[in-house]
């Protein structure tokens, strides 16, 4: 016959202090690994979630990001009527020519960071359809106005609506705030492309084009045609691939996080094992009594093991909640976490624990519960009733 | 050696107030072998603890070896115990991770003796109790009786005048019990030690000089034991 689960959790309650210790250890490990994992995941989410599956990024051949590419007006004229590019209701091709520049911005706490300023034309809002003006309005062309991403507004000096934002060679009036579901556009500032080219003294007006592919069109064929054009050295990448490549600098950190999680997990397993062994030792006479009463070895093994797993799962719950709250607190305290991506620009990341971030810590907790309790539970099960009772 | 006057001891056990000793007075002369006997809960262990400086009475006076124990602080009592009293308990006497001779040496760590001197004294004590060759053995390698003998060796290694033992034969079989009691009597006879034991083993009566009966915290009677008769007879 099996031991009731209530024996398990009642025993846990009875050994108050000891259970608290084990729960604390496992919860802390969960918090530590979750926080670190979420840091990287938040970064990846910001970068990778950027971009639309229906867009292409056109840059000069060999450029890895649109900040280091320069394109001519001729190339824009040449490709804008290519087959496969989507059109708006009036038949205008949905191709957004853009100029990317990375000037210094002053942060609220006195630091200095590179921020991506994107010179665009109004068609940009149609091509980047996940971007919307959440507050205020889009800038008027040639008016020295700017719209800033949500992340920019909270991190940099004079970046709220109505403020005079200083960057480049001049001052820009902030007239709107843009949002994009948390993607990297929220770390950007959008201004009129021509004005930006002037300010940055760019001889070539654009750094890249973003192209909306028509529904049902063959995206790869279009990309190939753009790349193969002999007049210009261009290349076209899917926008989502483009951003995914940019996020590769975070991969190093992933390695570290996983490595740290493994280390921390092993440490926690040792800690949990310690506690379970002590529990077994302390309850020797109890076990003897149970065995004498007729509970099988398997029943004892299962009972102790489930105790260990229950502790670990409870600890996971505590840790997950703690990590979730801590992430929000840290993010608020630091004004967002800045990460310099491969483009030398700053992405403002909101540190958040998403449900999917908890998968790894959950698995870790289960492993800790199982491996931490296995050996002690086996020892408990193997005890002979008569030895156990005598020791009491 | 021991003068106890009008001592009472009350303590809390959970919600209950236990009156362990009620106005007990006792005198033990130097060099006597005395047994405190009585049923369970009679207060005999408490009395032993009081005269050994392990417990403070709530009322009354305790004078041992000329010292007023009431006046001593915790640390002073510890020092008193280290120099004046040797202890033998029923269980847990020996530290399981130390060998027999190391266990015997333990009280000497409190003195200023050198390592070599400590070892020598310990070996001497072991010889007295007849376990000279078992010095390097761990407690788990010794029988119950042998463990008690090692405990006795430890009790005499500092040359303390008073040896107290709480149920020294409680866990032993008949033969071992007789050996321990005989050993204790030897300590009294050959080394002049004052020995107070607590026991409910009736066999002890024939080894001791005096039997003191307690019940419910009161001292009932004192009568001579077999040991005295033996002495008188020899």
């Amino acid at each position: 016959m099996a031991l009731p689960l209530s024996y398990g959790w009642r025993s846990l309650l009875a050994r108050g202090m000891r259970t608290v210790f084990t729960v604390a250890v496992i919860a802390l490990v969960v918090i530590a690994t979750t926080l670190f994992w979420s840091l990287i995941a938040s970064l990846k989410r910001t970068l990778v979630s950027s971009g639309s599956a229906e867009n292409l990024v056109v840059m000069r051949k060999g450029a890895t990001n649109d900040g280091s590419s320069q394109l001519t007006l001729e190339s824009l004229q040449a490709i804008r009527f290519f087959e496969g590019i989507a059109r708006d209701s009036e038949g205008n091709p949905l191709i957004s020519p853009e100029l990317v520049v990375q000037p210094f911005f002053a942060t609220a706490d006195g630091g200095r960071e590179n921020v991506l300023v994107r010179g665009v034309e109004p068609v940009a809002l149609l091509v980047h359809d996940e971007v919307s003006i959440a507050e205020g309005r889009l800038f008027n062309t040639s008016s020295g106005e700017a719209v800033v991403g949500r992340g920019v507004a909270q991190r940099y000096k004079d970046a709220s609506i109505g403020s005079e934002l200083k960057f480049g060679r001049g001052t820009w009036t902030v007239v709107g705030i843009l949002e994009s579901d948390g993607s990297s556009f929220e770390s950007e500032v959008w201004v009129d492309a021509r004005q930006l080219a002037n300010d940055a003294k760019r001889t070539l007006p654009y750094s890249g084009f973003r192209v909306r592919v028509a529904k049902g069109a063959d995206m790869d064929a279009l990309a190939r045609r753009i790349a193969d054009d002999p007049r210009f050295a261009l290349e076209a990448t899917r926008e989502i691939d483009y951003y995914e490549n940019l996020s590769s600098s975070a991969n190093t950190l992933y390695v570290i996080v996983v490595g740290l999680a493994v280390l921390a997990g092993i440490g926690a397993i040792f800690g949990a094992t310690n506690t379970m062994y002590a529990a077994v030792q302390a309850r020797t006479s109890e076990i003897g009594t149970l065995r004498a009463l007729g509970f099988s070895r398997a029943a004892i093994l299962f009972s102790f093991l489930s105790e260990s797993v229950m502790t670990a799962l409870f600890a996971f719950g505590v840790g997950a909640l703690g990590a979730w709250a801590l992430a929000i607190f840290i993010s608020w305290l630091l004004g967002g976490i800045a990460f310099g991506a491969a483009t030398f620009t700053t992405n403002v990341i909101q540190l958040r624990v998403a449900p999917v971030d908890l998968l790894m810590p959950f698995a870790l907790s289960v492993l800790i519960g199982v491996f931490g309790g296995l050996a002690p539970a086996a020892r408990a099960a193997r005890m002979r009733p008569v030895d156990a009772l005598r020791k009491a | 050696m021991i003068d106890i006057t009008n001592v009472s001891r009350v303590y809390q056990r959970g919600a209950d107030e236990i009156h362990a000793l009620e106005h007990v007075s006792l005198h033990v002369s130097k060099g006597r072998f005395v047994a405190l006997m009585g049923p369970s809960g009679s207060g005999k262990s408490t009395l032993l603890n009081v005269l050994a400086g392990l417990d403070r009475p709530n009322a009354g006076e305790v004078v041992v070896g000329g010292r007023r124990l009431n006046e001593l602080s915790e640390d002073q009592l510890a020092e008193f115990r280290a120099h004046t009293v040797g202890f033998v308990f029923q269980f847990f006497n020996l530290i399981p991770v130390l060998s027999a001779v190391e266990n015997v040496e333990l009280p000497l760590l409190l003195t200023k003796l050198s390592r070599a001197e400590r070892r020598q004294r310990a070996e001497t004590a072991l010889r007295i109790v007849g376990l000279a060759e078992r010095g390097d053995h761990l407690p788990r390698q010794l029988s119950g009786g042998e463990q008690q003998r090692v405990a006795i060796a430890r009790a005499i290694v500092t040359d303390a005048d008073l040896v107290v033992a709480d149920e020294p034969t409680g866990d032993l079989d008949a033969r071992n019990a007789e050996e321990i009691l005989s050993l204790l009597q030897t300590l009294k006879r050959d080394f002049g030690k004052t020995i107070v034991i607590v026991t409910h083993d009736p066999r002890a009566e024939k080894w001791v000089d005096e039997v003191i009966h307690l019940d419910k915290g009161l001292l009932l009677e004192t009568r001579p034991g077999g040991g005295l008769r033996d002495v008188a007879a020899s």
Partner: protein
Amino acid sequence: MKYLPFVLRNLGRNKLRSLLTASSIALAIALVCILRTMPAGLDSFLSSIASNTRVSTHNEAGMVYAMPYAYLQKVRAIPGVVAAISWQWFGGAVDLSKGVAFPNFAVDPEDFGRVYEDWNIAPQALEDFRKYRDAALVGRATLEKNGWKVGDVVTLQSTVFPMQLSFRIVGEVPNPRATQFYFQREYLVQAFQASGTPIDSTGMIWSRIDDPDRVEPIMRQIDEMFRNGEAETASETEKSFFGNFFSSLKGIVAVIQIVAGIVTLCIVFIAANTASMSVRERVGEIAILRAIGFRRKIVFSTLLAEAAILSTLAGVAGALVSLGLTLMLRNLTSSGPQLGPLTGFIVTDTILVQALFLAFLIGIVSGWLPALGASRRSVAQTLREVF
């Protein structure tokens, strides 16, 4: 000290438990060491350039905004400027799919050695750097990472200019953390001329000033000189420049420190649990020790010493493990220039010492209460309960 054998023996009482506790402490210390390498790498880099007389000058609007190359001559002419060179970002990658793995710049070779005197580059290397058009000076970390040595020819594909250039490595920057790659500006200029578009701008100018007290005034002088010019400049000390450069990493570093702190807390719990368990088991024994005359203080110190010794030994093991693991990390991961000093993964002596001290402290903190409790228990009470 005469109690030491006694203390050590007690650790051997329950070998499994001591081993498990020590292992978890060791692992956690290893973790803390590894985590600490990240901010420590940053701190060490910043402090190594803390007090020098180098000044950077860049376009006030941002580093990616260009300045006229002619500015270099004007800066050189200022009295008090010992030497000045320009840096032009090349953005070269060995393998385009992996991106730019180390910072690389086109610089002026003649004065390079004088501006960076404190880098201790071999005179012969500097000479070759001046002599050969395609010469390159490479930081030791990058050499080791890519398995390059002096004499090798390497090719970099620029991600900012449409060109690919081959270089001959003539010398190293001896600092084990240095990742930079420098080559001749003239080489870049010629490549530009060959492709038909000349280049007459530069990204940054670095100058060395003769006297620390003159640094402030000269910086102001430079910026004044170019105010209202084609490009307004902002000059700052090298330390300020890199401080700003890496300031965006502050957030990540903060999270790392927090995680390290949490891990430490974890260990304290584990160690405290063990200490209290092991003390609780011995309650009868401890009572007897006190009975035979051991004062509370001695009981307390021997129990505390047990926890401290176990913890410190575990800390040593953990520190050793961290040395091995960081070696692996250095070989397995690549650091982009923007993460730079953060991913050097070098466990310094300071970190080791801090870790050992931490381990010792953990022993003390975790063992304190159990030891105190055990030493203070009423002996008579314990004897009553146990027997």
